[in-house]
C-alpha cells in the first residue's frame, strides 16, 4: 500500500513536469536561429541521453551488488536498469537521427558520439540475448547478466567523453565552463525535459522491477507445486 501510494504520487509529479515542460518548450522557449522549431527535438534527445546513462549506471551498480550479495532482487534491478536504459538509448538514436537530418542533412554519419552510442545500444541488446540464453537457470542467468553488465557499462563514459577525446561534429552541450546554450529559456526547457525523462525512467524501472519480482515469485510457486 505504501509503495503504491509513493508510485502514484511519483506518476502525478511526472505528469505535471511533462505538462510544464511541453508548454515551456513550445510557448516560452524561442525558436533556434538556424534550425527553427525543429531544434525542440534536442530537449527530448538530451533528456533521453541522461536518463539512459542513469538507468545503465543503476543497472551496473545493481550488477555489482548482485555479485557481492547473490540476492536475486539486485539482479532484477540490474535487468530493469538495462531494459529502461536500452529504451532511452533507442530514443536517443532515433531523435538524434531526426535532428541530424535537419541540422547536418543526413540521417547518420560516422561521428564518434554516434558510433559509440550505437555500440552501446548493440552491447545492451547482446546483454538480453545472453540473459535469454541462460533463461532455464535463473542463478546462471543472473551471474552471466551481471558480468556482462560490468563490461557493457564501460562504453557509457566513452560515449559521454567521445566529443572531447576525438574530433566530432556533435554539439558539445556540457562543457567545462557549463551549459553551452545562450538562451536561458532554452536551458529551462532542457532542464524540465531532463527532470521529466529521469522521472519517467524511474517509473519504468519500478514497473519492470515489479514485473521481474512477480515472474520470480510465480516461478517459485510453480516449482513448489511441481514438487508435490
Amino acid at each position, binding site marked *: 500500500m505504501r509503495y*503504491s501510494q509513493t*508510485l502514484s504520487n511519483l*506518476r502525478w509529479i511526472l*505528469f505535471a513536469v*511533462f505538462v510544464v515542460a*511541453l508548454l515551456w518548450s*513550445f510557448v516560452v522557449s524561442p*525558436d533556434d536561429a538556424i534550425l*527553427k*522549431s*525543429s531544434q*525542440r527535438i534536442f530537449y*527530448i534527445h538530451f533528456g533521453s541521453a541522461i536518463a539512459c546513462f542513469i538507468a545503465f549506471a543503476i543497472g551496473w551498480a545493481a550488477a555489482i551488488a548482485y555479485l557481492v550479495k547473490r540476492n536475486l532482487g539486485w539482479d532484477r534491478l540490474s535487468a530493469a536498469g538495462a531494459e529502461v536504459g536500452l529504451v532511452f538509448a533507442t530514443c536517443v538514436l532515433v531523435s538524434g537521427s531526426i535532428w541530424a537530418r535537419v541540422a547536418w542533412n543526413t540521417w547518420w554519419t560516422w561521428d564518434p558520439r554516434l558510433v559509440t552510442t550505437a555500440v552501446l545500444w548493440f552491447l545492451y541488446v547482446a546483454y538480453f540475448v545472453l540473459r535469454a540464453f541462460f533463461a532455464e537457470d535463473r542463478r546462471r542467468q543472473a551471474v552471466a547478466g551481471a558480468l556482462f553488465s560490468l563490461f557493457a557499462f564501460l562504453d557509457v563514459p566513452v560515449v559521454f567523453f567521445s566529443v572531447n577525446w576525438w574530433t566530432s561534429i556533435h554539439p558539445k552541450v556540457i562543457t567545462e565552463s557549463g551549459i553551452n546554450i545562450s538562451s536561458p529559456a532554452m536551458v529551462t526547457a532542457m532542464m524540465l525535459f531532463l527532470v521529466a525523462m529521469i522521472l*519517467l525512467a524511474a*517509473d*519504468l524501472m519500478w*514497473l519492470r522491477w*515489479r*514485473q521481474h519480482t*512477480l515472474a520470480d*515469485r*510465480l516461478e517459485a*510457486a510453480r516449482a*513448489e*507445486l511441481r514438487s*508435490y
Partner: protein
Amino acid sequence: MSEQIALWFLFFAYTAVFVILFLVVGRLHSRASRLEKEVEHLEAAVSEEEKKKA
C-alpha cells in the same frame, strides 16, 4: 505561417505521444497490481497445501 503550423503540429504530436505513453504505463502498473494479488493468492494456496501435507 507554415512555420507556425509546423510548430503546432509538433506540439500536438509531442503531446499525443506522451499522453499515449502515460496511458500505457498506467495500464501496465494496474495490471502488475492485479497480478500481484493473484500471485499472493497462489502463494497462500501453495502454503496451505504444504500445511495439509505436513
